[in-house]
C-alpha cells in the first residue's frame, strides 16, 4: 500500500477532451469519467443537461505525487478560461502485489 494523489476535476463536458489531453501530457495516463453531473458553481446551475449540452463531467485521476505539479500547470489555464474546479487529496493505493504486507 503506497501513497498516491487523487485529482478530482468537475468541469463542463466540452472541456473533457482538453482536460484528458492535459492529464496525459502530464504523465497521468489513468482516469475515470462520470458524465451527466448536475451542479452549481460560479457560473450558475447546469441542470438542463441534454437540452443545452452544457452538462458537467466529474473526472477522477489517481497519480504519483510527482505528477501533481505538471497536472496543475496544464489544467489550470483551461479551468480559468472555461470554468470548472480541481481538488487534490491523499489516498492509499491497493494494487501492487505486496500491499497486504504493508498494512
Amino acid at each position: 500500500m503506497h501513497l498516491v494523489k487523487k485529482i478530482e476535476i468537475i468541469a463542463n463536458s466540452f472541456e473533457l477532451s482538453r482536460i484528458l489531453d492535459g492529464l496525459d501530457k502530464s504523465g497521468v495516463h489513468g482516469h475515470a469519467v462520470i458524465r451527466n453531473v448536475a451542479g452549481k458553481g460560479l457560473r450558475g446551475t447546469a441542470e438542463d443537461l441534454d437540452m443545452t449540452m452544457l452538462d458537467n463531467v466529474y473526472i477522477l485521476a489517481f497519480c504519483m505525487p510527482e505528477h501533481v505539479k505538471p497536472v496543475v500547470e496544464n489544467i489550470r489555464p483551461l479551468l480559468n478560461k472555461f470554468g470548472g474546479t480541481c481538488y487534490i487529496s491523499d489516498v492509499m493505493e491497493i494494487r501492487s502485489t505486496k500491499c497486504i504486507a504493508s498494512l
Partner: protein
Amino acid sequence: MDVSLIISNILNPPILFFFLGMTAVFVKSDLEIPAPIPKLFSLYLLFAIGFKGGVELIKSGITQEVVLTLAAAMFMACLVPIYTFFILKLKLDTYDAAAIAATYGSISAVTFITASAFLTELGIHFDGYMVAALALMESPAIIVGLILVNLFTVDEKRDFSWPEVLQEAFLNSSVFLLVGSLLIGFLTGEHGWKVLEPFTQGLFYGVLTFFLLDMGLVAARRIKDLQKTGVFLVLFAILIPIVNAGIGLAIAKFISLPPGDSLLFAVLCASASYIAVPAAMRLTVPEANPSLYVSTALAVTFPFNIIVGIPLYLYGINLFWR
C-alpha cells in the same frame, strides 16, 4: 382572424404539452423526462426531418427556386447577427452582445419542426428543400459572432484556432446529423422513404409532442433567470424575432416563395438557437455569460415563436400573399 389562428395553433397536442411542461414547473410537480431521453428525441427529430427533406429534394430537383431560397437563407444568417450585435452593444459588453447576436442569427430546429407540423395540419403545402435552408442557417452566425468579437475587442490577442471554430460550427452534432440525413434521403429517395416511413413519419408527431413537453419543463426552469437578464433583453427576445420574421417575409415575397415555404423561412429568421450556438459560444467566447444567451432564446423567444409567432407570421402571409 389572427386570434383564431393562435387558438387553433394552441389547441394542438404539441403546444398543449409544451404548456403542460411549463405548468409542471410552476406548480412544482416532480415531472421530468430523464436524460438522455430528450437527447434521443432531438436526434430522432433531426434524423426524420433531414431524411424527409432529402427525399423531397430529390423529387423536386435543385431548381432556381431552391438556389434562391438558400441564398436568401445565407444572407439572413449573416445579416441578423451583425445588425442585432449593434443593438445589443447599446446595453451589453462586446462578448455578451456577440454571443446573443450569434444565437439569434442561428435557428431552432424544433421551432421549424413545430411550424411544419402546424402547416401540415392546416393542409398548407411546403417544400422539402426548406430543410436545406434550415441546415444552412445553423452555422454562419457562429462565425460572424466570432469575427465581431475579434473586431471589437482590442486588448489582448485571443488564443483560439480557426480550425477548431469551423469544426464547432459546421460539424457539431445537430448540423452533422441534419445534413447527413438530408444527404442520405437524397441518395435513397422514394425507395428509402418507403421502408423508413413508419419510423420517420408515423412517430414524428408523437415524438414532437413528447419533446415539447420536455421543452416546456426546460423553458420554465429558465424563466427565473430572466430577472437577471433584465427588461432590455426580454423585450429584445420578443421584438427581434418579429422584426426578423418581417424581413424574412419581405424577402420571401420578393423571391416569390409560396406561402408554406415563406412561413418556414420567416420562422427560421425569427428563431434563435439554444443548443448549437450556446455550445459553440461556451468554447469560443467563454467570456460571455451563458445564462444571458441561453435564457433569452429558450425561455422567451422559443415559447413566443411556437405559441404566438408561428400563427402571427402566417397571418401576415394570409394578408399579403393573396
